[in-house]
């Protein structure tokens, strides 16, 4: 047999430095840390709610603190960036959609998703103002 040529394999270390798209990708994936953290925060609220009024008021009181505001502003940014990127790639994951025989362009799907985002947000706000 002809010997296989000696090849050089480049390492992957710090690969995300190589392209801005990689850093955007990691940022997008990074939002999941905030999503999980927020879930834990809500879970803590639930625990307090079960434990009784004293415990819950501690959690409720924490909401007023600067730490909470910073945490929430960060979470807000993370969720918003998550939503934007999620909707942006959504057309890639949905089965082909046609309208009157013509394939629906990606930007229409994206726009529709933004609308859905807006509507869901308003609905949630209305419900919250009614029930909280």
């Amino acid at each position, binding site marked *: 047999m002809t010997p296989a*040529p*000696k*090849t*050089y*394999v*480049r390492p*992957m270390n710090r*690969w*995300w430095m*190589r*392209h801005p*798209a*990689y850093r955007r*990708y990691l940022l997008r*994936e990074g939002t999941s840390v905030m999503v999980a953290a927020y879930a834990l925060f809500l879970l803590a609220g639930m625990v307090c709610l079960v434990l009784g009024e004293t415990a819950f008021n501690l959690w409720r009181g924490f909401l007023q603190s600067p730490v909470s505001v910073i945490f929430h502003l960060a979470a807000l940014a993370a969720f918003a960036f998550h939503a934007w990127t999620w909707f942006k*790639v959504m*057309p*890639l*994951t*949905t*089965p*082909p959609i046609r309208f009157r*025989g013509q*394939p629906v362009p990606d930007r229409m799907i994206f726009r529709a998703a933004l609308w859905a985002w807006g509507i869901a947000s308003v609905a949630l706000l209305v419900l919250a103002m009614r029930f909280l």
Partner: protein
Amino acid sequence: MSQTRTIMIECLRYDPEQDQAPHYRTYEVPFTDEMSVLEGLQYIKDHLDGSLTFRWSCRMAICGSCGCMVNHQPILSCQSFLRDYYPARIRVEPLEHFPIVKDLVIDQSDFLGKLESVTPYLVPAQPLTPEDGPNLQTPRQIEDYLGYAQCINCLLCYAACPQYGLNHEFTGPAALALLARYNADSRDAGQKTRMAVVNAEEGVWGCTLVGLCSEVCPKHVDPARAINRNKINSTQDYFLRFLMPFGRGS
């Protein structure tokens, strides 16, 4: 004649017979407005250093030979122009995520094996011969797969895919797009065979939708779409077999 300027081209050099690791070498290349990066490399090979090694052939963006990284962006060197980088110097490197054979030449055998693994040909429902005449296929049916059939196997998408770089088991963008091309063809009945590739550990589930593959594709094949649509198909396939244990054979 447009005026001649000079650009610095920094090339990764690796000679498997001499070097333990790659190094860079810079060349001063005179260029005119219509000169491509490929022509810049050809100038180096013809006039400055005949040992600079790179693949090229059609010089019109259809054969898929001349892919390389310019300033960390995977491109076809024949349709990227030096004027667009000037006055900055450019750094030309072989496609990322592939072993380097020599200079800008990478080992593409892993990709070729993956291409072969996706049953990349029509599997007709019944055997046909030319005497049966051509199949009917409407322009609308062609549209379903024609986009995926534009792939020139240039491997820019693999160079853009960190998941392939991190795990070479991953079947990768172009091969999975080709799989989707045949599955979407109205003349094909081979979906079941290909579903095993889709469903596998190294199939569509190796993708985390970085999405750069579709951005760098010079032929707008959109492998990210092909792969991620098949995630839905694979999920359906995964759960449906519990619902219909007898209906789906295999």
